[in-house]
C-alpha cells in the first residue's frame, strides 16, 4: 500500500507540473503582448512597463516558469493584475462556494442515483427498469447549462419559488441553502443518470456471483442480500466514477456559477479570462486541477484500500 501510495503521489505531482507548463505555454502562445492584453488597448507605455516588470514578463520564459513553480510551491500564486491582491487569497474566498455547490450537486445525485440504480438492477427488464433507464439516459444527455437556464426560468422567473442569483446572505444559512437549490439541481441532474447506470451495471454483475446465490440459498432476507452484500461490492466502481465526477462537476459548475451569478472558482476563471487577468486564470486553473487530481487520487486510494488487486496493478 505504501509503494502504491508513493507511486500515485509521484504521478499526481507530475500531472500538476504538466498543467503548470501547459498554462504557461498558453499564456505565451496567445497572440499579442500579455501586458497590453491585460491592461487594455489604451494603457500608457509606463503602465505596460510597470506591469511587465511586476509579472516578470521582461525575464526569459524559462526563468518566468521557474519563478512561478517556486512561488506556487510556497503557496504564492502571484497577485491580481488590477487589485494587487494575492491570488491565493482571492481563490480562498471563492473555493468554498464551488466546493459547496459541487458537493451538494453530487451529494443529491448519489443519494438518488444509488437507490434507483439498485431498484433497476433488482427488477431487471421490468417497466421500472426501463423507466429508470430512459430517465438516466435522458438526464445524462441534457447539458448542465440547459438545465441551469430552464430551471432558472421555471422556478425563479415564472414561479418565483427560488432565488435566481447570488449565494445568499453571509451568515444566513437558510438563505444560502435556498440559493444553492437550483444550481445544485442543475449540476447534479446528469450525475443521477451516470450513478444509477453504473450502480445498475455493477449490481447486475455482482448479483450473479456465487456468494450472492449462496446468501439467498441460506434464506437471508432479500433486502439484506441486496444492500448488505451486493451493494457493498457493486459500489466500488461507483467510487471511481464519483471521484471523476467531482472533477467533471467543477467544470460544469462554471456554467451554473455564471448563469446563477454565484461566486466560485468557475466564475472566477471565466471573469479572469474575459478581463485577461492572467495571474488569476493561472492560479485558479492550477487550484481546480490540483483539487481534481487530489479527489481522483483519494478515490483511487480508497479503491486500493478495499481491493488489493488494484494495488498490484500499478
Amino acid at each position, binding site marked *: 500500500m505504501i509503494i502504491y501510495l508513493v507511486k500515485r503521489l509521484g504521478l499526481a505531482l507530475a500531472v500538476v507540473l504538466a498543467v503548470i507548463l501547459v498554462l504557461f505555454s498558453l499564456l505565451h502562445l496567445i*497572440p499579442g503582448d500579455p501586458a497590453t492584453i491585460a491592461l*487594455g*488597448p489604451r494603457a500608457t507605455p509606463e*503602465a505596460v512597463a510597470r506591469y511587465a516588470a511586476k509579472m516578470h514578463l521582461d525575464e526569459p520564459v524559462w526563468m518566468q516558469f521557474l519563478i512561478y513553480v517556486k512561488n506556487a510551491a510556497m503557496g504564492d500564486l502571484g497577485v491580481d493584475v488590477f487589485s*494587487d491582491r494575492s491570488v491565493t487569497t482571492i481563490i480562498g474566498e471563492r473555493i468554498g462556494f464551488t466546493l459547496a455547490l459541487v458537493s451538494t450537486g453530487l451529494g443529491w445525485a448519489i443519494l438518488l442515483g444509488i437507490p434507483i440504480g439498485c431498484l433497476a438492477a433488482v*427488477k431487471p427488464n421490468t417497466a421500472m427498469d426501463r423507466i429508470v433507464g430512459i430517465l438516466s439516459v435522458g438526464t445524462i444527455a441534457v447539458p448542465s447549462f440547459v438545465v441551469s437556464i430552464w430551471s432558472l*426560468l421555471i422556478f425563479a422567473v415564472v414561479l418565483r419559488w427560488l432565488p435566481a*442569483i447570488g449565494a445568499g446572505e453571509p451568515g444566513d444559512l437558510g438563505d444560502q441553502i435556498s440559493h444553492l437549490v437550483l444550481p445544485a439541481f442543475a449540476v447534479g441532474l446528469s450525475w443521477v443518470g451516470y450513478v444509477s447506470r453504473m450502480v445498475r451495471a455493477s449490481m447486475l454483475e455482482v448479483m450473479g456471483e456465487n456468494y450472492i446465490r449462496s446468501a439467498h440459498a441460506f434464506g437471508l432476507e432479500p433486502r439484506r442480500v441486496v444492500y448488505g452484500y451486493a451493494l457493498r461490492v457493486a459500489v466500488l466502481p461507483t467510487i471511481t466514477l464519483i471521484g471523476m465526477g467531482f472533477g467533471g462537476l467543477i467544470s460544469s459548475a462554471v456554467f451554473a456559477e455564471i448563469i446563477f451569478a454565484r461566486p466560485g472558482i468557475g466564475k472566477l476563471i471565466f471573469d479572469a479570462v474575459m478581463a485577461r487577468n492572467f495571474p488569476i486564470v493561472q492560479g485558479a486553473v492550477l487550484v481546480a486541477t490540483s483539487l481534481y487530481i487530489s479527489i481522483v487520487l483519494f478515490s483511487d486510494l480508497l479503491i486500493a484500500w478495499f481491493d488489493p488487486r488494484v494495488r498490484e496493478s500499478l
Partner: protein
Amino acid sequence: MKSLTTSRRAFLASTAAIGAYSLLPGLPKFAYADGNVLKLRLDSDNEILDPGYMTGATEIEAQKQCLPFLAEYARNGETFGWQPTYFVKKLEQRDPTHIDFELEEGLVWSNGYGPVKASDVKFSYERMKESDWSGYFTALDHVEVTGDRTGTIVLNTAFAPFIMITLCHGPGAIVCAQAVKDVGGKFTNKFPAVCGPYTYEQTPGQRATFKANPEWNGPKPAFERVEANVITEVKAAELAFEAGELDCTKIGSDTLARYQKEMPAGSEITVGGELQYMWMGMNTEHPKLKDQKVRRAIQHAIDVDSILAGAYSGTTRKSHGIVCPGLIGQRDATKYYSYDPAKARALLEEAGVSGLQLTLRTLNQQERVLAAQIIQANLAAIGITVKVMPLDSGPFWEMGQESKGDTWQDLELWLMRFGTTPDPYEASQWFVSSQVGIWNWERWTSEEYDALYQQGIVETDDAKRREIYLKMQDIMEETGAYVWINHEPETFVHRSSINVNSSPSGELNYRRFTRT
C-alpha cells in the same frame, strides 16, 4: 419484499398531483426589493476604488456615492452639460485657466478625519498628475488653496472641456488627504474615508453594499441601502430582473428589442447616454484603397440602415460622425455619401477597378460579426469580394499600431467602436496626424484638422466649438475612409416605481435615484 409496481392510473394520478401542487398559492415567493433597498447590478467586482488607479466603470459608480465631486453631469433635454454638486457653494470659471471653488460647510470625512478642506482638493487633483489617469489632468498646473474651504484650480493652458471630462468624471473624485496618506498613498477595494450619502462595503465576487452614511448631513438619498450584485453576464442580469431580484439593470440590444414589443409588467426603459461611436474604417495607404474613388464607392455601397436593423434589431441610433448624440458638434446627416449602389458601381468603373478582394477585420462579437456579414453582402452587390476576419481582442486592438508589429500594413477594412466622454474633444483626439500608426489606423493626415483640434480645446464659446467639430467631421468623411454606423445606447430597464439617474457614459448614480 414488497415490489414497486407502476400503472397507467398511478402515473396519471401522480402527474396530476404534481401539476396541481405547482399551482398552489402560498409557496415562498421572492418579492421585489422592498422600499428602502435598491437592488442593482455590477458587471464586475470593484477592484480599485482609488481614483488614480481604478480600472474605471463600476468603480466610478462607487466613488460617486462615497466621495465628493465639485461638478456633475446635467442633462438639458437632448444635450449634456454640467452643474455644481451639493458639495460646493461655488464653482466658477473665472477665465480660461482659473476655476474658483468654495466647498459647502459641514462636510465631514468618516473615520474621524474631520471636515473636507480645500487642501483635500489640492491633494486629490495634484496626485492625479502622477497617476494612471494622468491624461485627464494634463491641463492642470496646480490647485491654489486660499482658505479652509476655498481654492482655485489653475490650468497651464486653456482647456475648455476640463470641467466636463475631468471634474464631472471619475478622476474628479476628491479623497481625504490624511486618510490616503495613512494607508500608504494608495488604496484598493476599501475607502480609507468617505464623505457622501453612503458608506461602502464589499463582499468580493458577490456584491457591493452601500448603506446610508450616518455622518452625512447633505441631501438624503431616496434609498437607505443599495445592494449592487456582481453579475458578469448581461443575460443573467436580465433574468434576475425578470425574477424580481433586481430593480434596475443594463440590457443588451436584443433584449431591448424584445421589451419594446412586450415590456415586463411594471417596468420602464431609460437611456443613459449614447457615448459610443462605431464606424467601418479603411486604410487610405493600402494599395487597394489608395484611390479615393474606391473608398467613396465603398461608402456608397454600404446600407447602414440594414446593419442597424439586422445586427442591432433597430435599437441603436444611426451615426453621422464621431461626435455622439447630446454633444456639441453632433451631425444630423452625412455630407459626402449616402446609400447608392448604382453610384458605387459607377465610381468603381471610373477608378478602373474590378474583381476587388478585401479583408474586413472585426472583434469576434455577435453584433459586429453580423454587421460585417451585412457589409460583406452589400459590397458583393457591387462586385467587391469581402473576407470577414473575426478576431480576439488581443490581436484586434494591436493590428493598427506600428509599435505592435506589421499587421497595420495589411489592414484594409475594419469595424471599430470607441467610447468617449461627454465632450467632442475626447473623440476627436484620436485622428490627429500624430496618432497615425497609433489610433488613427485610417492613416490620413490633415493640417487643417490638426489646427481645428487645437482650436477646439481652447475655444469656450459653444457656437464656435460646434462649428469647429462639424468641420472636423467633414474633413474626416471627405477622406472616404469612414462609413459611420451607429451610437450604441446605455439602456437600463427598471421598475416603474423608480427614476434612474445615469451619467452619459452609463455609470449609475444611486444617490440621485428617486421614487416615482
